[in-house]
């Protein structure tokens, strides 16, 4: 009974949690509700994954309506993968958030913070599982609006400006997306992704489709911070409350990338060749620009959260590069990197959250020698950093290895070199952190600090641990990513 309703349960759990949290008006209760709801979500996500692996694609019709009329939730290897990722991060973030939120959010707003968190999670999961283009827009808006609020809840006044900018940019993106979806509806007369695919097959002219695709890709591009549409992201992540930054960095852009991949390969894949030289090289070019320029910008940042945010833009470049390669290995690499990057960036932002909690600052020059007093936190940050570089033994290496392999398979030897060359920039910014954190005499802020509380260390080390674990035993995530890639390329039914 429950098993058949899993897809909708996935959305309902956080959604209901959000309502309850909003009603509770009590910080502690709201946190508990959030924790339970996200734990439930994660459990459902894993159950979904298990079912997909066991039985193949799951189609769930809301209210039993046919896809032509109603909304279909459709879970396959691709979004099961994403859903699991969001589920894991959601739970860990909730565990982590309590202390951080107490310190960063004024007490009256704590409950609404958790409400927004849960809403955001619900929205992201919705985007992931829905098989309906317009429904995706709705969920996109839910997650975006809650995100704006989350960012604005930050104490720093710059958070407001950042949230406002994100609001505008996000709205432009959503608008672009909805325009694209509208165009598709005009052409095909349906919003269901599966039906769109079927009906596109009989389409004569693809002119309208091209414009639709353009709007959709650029619209999602804005959400996923595709270079050069990324400028909203660094400030948003840097000034958002620490736990919000963890959630956003690990999931928000990732889900947007999923949506992009879904449209590119599943919807348009059969008609507009993604691997075509023109389009492929545009996406490759933008990805490379992100990998180099955003990483370079990260090198000179003094605020570590901002540094990590720029790093995110750069790492997204790797993911989109993997997609742009449009071969199984490349896409596997891209999706795997999506997964790995979410985990390690989550660990990094958690570590920064802990450091901010203890020292009140995220400025590199004020954090000299922090490794002496917060060794576990600093170690987690270091491991995440090594993962960002792609040092072997960390999960970052495995995904980059697949990317290089994909580039070589595509016959782009130079691209392989550029991938590793850009990783070298990561050495620079991670090296800066490591050097200051471990090998400098402790600064004032560091001398007064102490190690982060256990409830923050645990989720942080959970993520740092899997960064190492998946670096040594990457078969599970690599298998998931590979299955997802095959699904995207329709190599499996």
């Amino acid at each position, binding site marked *: 009974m429950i098993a058949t309703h899993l897809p909708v349960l996935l959305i309902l759990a956080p959604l209901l949690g959000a309502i309850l949290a909003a009603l509770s008006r009590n910080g502690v209760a709201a946190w508990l509700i959030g924790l339970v709801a996200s734990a439930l979500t994660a459990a459902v996500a894993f159950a979904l994954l298990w079912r997909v692996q066991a039985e193949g694609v799951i189609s769930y019709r809301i209210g039993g309506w046919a896809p032509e009329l109603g909304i279909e939730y459709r879970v396959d290897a691709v979004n099961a993968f994403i859903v699991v990722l969001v589920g894991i991060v959601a739970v860990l973030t909730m565990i982590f958030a309590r202390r951080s939120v107490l310190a960063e959010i004024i007490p009256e707003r704590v409950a609404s913070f958790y409400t927004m968190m849960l809403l955001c999670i619900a929205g992201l999961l919705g985007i992931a599982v829905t098989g309906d283009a317009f429904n995706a827009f709705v969920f996109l808006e839910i997650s975006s609006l809650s995100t704006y609020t989350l960012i604005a809840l930050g104490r720093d006044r710059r958070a407001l400006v950042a949230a406002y900018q994100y609001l505008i940019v996000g709205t432009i993106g959503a608008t672009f997306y909805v325009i694209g979806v509208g165009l598709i509806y005009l052409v095909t007369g349906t919003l269901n992704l599966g039906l769109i695919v079927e009906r596109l097959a009989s389409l004569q002219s693809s002119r309208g489709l091209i414009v639709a695709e353009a709007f959709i890709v650029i619209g999602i591009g804005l959400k996923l911070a595709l270079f050069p549409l990324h400028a909203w992201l660094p400030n948003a992540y840097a000034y958002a409350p620490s736990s919000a930054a963890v959630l956003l960095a690990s999931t928000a852009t990732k889900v947007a990338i999923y949506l992009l991949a879904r449209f590119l390969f599943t919807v348009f894949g059969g008609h507009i060749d993604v691997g075509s030289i023109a389009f492929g090289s545009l996406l490759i070019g933008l990805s490379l620009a992100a990998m180099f320029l955003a990483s370079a910008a990260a090198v000179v940042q003094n605020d570590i959260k901002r540094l990590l945010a720029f790093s995110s833009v750069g790492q997204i470049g790797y993911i989109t590069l993997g997609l742009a390669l449009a071969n199984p290995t490349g896409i596997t690499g891209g999706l795997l990197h999506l997964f790995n990057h979410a985990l390690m960036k989550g660990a990094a932002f958690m570590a920064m959250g802990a450091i901010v909690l203890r020292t009140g600052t995220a400025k590199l020059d004020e954090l000299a020698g922090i490794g002496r007093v917060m060794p576990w936190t600093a170690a987690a940050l270091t491991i995440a950093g090594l993962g960002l570089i792609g040092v*072997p033994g960390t999960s970052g290496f495995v995904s980059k290895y697949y990317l290089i392999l994909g580039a070589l398979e595509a016959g782009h*030897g130079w691209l*392989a070199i550029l991938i590793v060359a850009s*990783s*070298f920039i990561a*050495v620079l910014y991670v*090296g800066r952190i490591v050097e200051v954190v*471990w090998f400098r005499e402790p600064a004032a802020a560091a001398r007064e600090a102490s190690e982060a509380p256990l409830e923050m260390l645990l989720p942080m080390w959970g993520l740092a641990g899997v960064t190492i674990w998946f670096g040594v035993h*990457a*078969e599970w995530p690599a298998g998931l990513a590979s299955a997802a890639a095959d699904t995207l390329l329709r190599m499996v039914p």
Partner: protein
Amino acid sequence: MNFLSDPTLLALALALPAGATLAIAMLGRWPNLREAATLLAALLLFGVVMTLLAHVLAGARPELHLASVAPGLTLALKIDPLGMLFAAVAATLWIVNSLYSIGYMRGNDEPRQTMFYACFAIAISATMGLAFSSNLFTLFVFYEVLSLSTYPLVTHKQSPAAMRAGRVYLLTLIGASMVLLLPAIVWTGLVAGTLDFRTGGILAGKLGDDALALLFALFVFGTAKAAVMPLHRWLPAAMVAPTPVSALLHAVAVVKAGVFTILKVSVSVFGIETLQTSGASQWLVYVAGFTIVAASIIALRADDLKRRLAYSTIGQLSYIVLAAALASPVAVIGAGLHIAAHAVSKITLFFAAGSVYTAEHVTRVSQMDGIGRRMPWTMGAFAIGALSMIGLPPTAGFLGKWFILDAATGATDWFAVGVILVSTVLNAAYFLPILTRAFLRPANGPRQEAPLAMVIALTVTAAGTIGLFLFPGVPFRLASMIMGG
């Protein structure tokens, strides 16, 4: 009788130093216990490695599967003669180096000693992993771990100069390995369909001659630890580190890891025959030759003792690279022997340099007047090390040079022969003046040796330098077995 199986021993070889790291970290508050832990681990490791050595000489090739990272990427160990040679050298020298470190670190009141010993142990563990790796991926992993674990050692003094040197060190090593070595490995995997080492190579017939040469270049320059010019600058820069670290870098682990990698790749990825027939390594003869001569000329003019030794190392490493480039069975034997010979001689030289520094705070050649009269044991050992660097019998340095020269004349590569001729004279020209200064100038003080632990260590390695010449049996057998796998 043999209750420890080979795979267990193999795992122990990595686990012992790694475990020592933990023990050292926990015993940080009790220096005596901490040092005891280091020495104990070193002795145990020596026992394990020697047992393995006996088995390998008897024909065993122990294997151990650690983890499957992803399809095509496995972490696995397998002992072959070349790796055994390298591991035996490193394990043996770890004991002496530990002994020496104790004398040095205490004699100079160095700070952060716990960190020092801990990182040292990780580096040894990584070296074992590197030596025993059974595929390119495993080798790469341990190569990087070695780079990272030695970074805190290079920056040990934490002065601005040390931090700068550390940056150069890490950026060069990691940078080259990522930008060049990693693509080379991936390319190899793609072309050969496997990353496993196989004597005779896995690339035969898989690539054209030009592509082979390019791939070989990626491997050689990607392995910046081998310090082939122009990727050599990190080595003299890293001289800011305490002397036991320099000894580790130059003799035991880091640079040897570099030349070991190049040699291993030549033998077990390309295959000597493939290199020979395709001529893919011919260009390297010239690059290595240039490095040898240029490094020697720079060393000639360096007044700072450790800098001179550093450039000497660069030159000596390129002998091994030259051997790999000559790509013949004899050359491989020479390279293998030279790894062992250079290790024991160069560590002697660095020990002596550190001993002179500890006793007299002398760092420059021009300050060494009469120091041989004041520290006869130290400088006597230095003299033996220097003879070995020149390659004169009866010192170990002769062994490697002999076979490499054999390979060069055998291939009638007169350029390589000329390089060896010139560099031998240059080596003499920059080492002998140190000796004349130390022994022939009048001493300006009473006799005063370095702490006993240091003197013992450097005497042992100096004796080893001569002993290796007189009894080269075991390393020679190992080196001869390299081509057989």
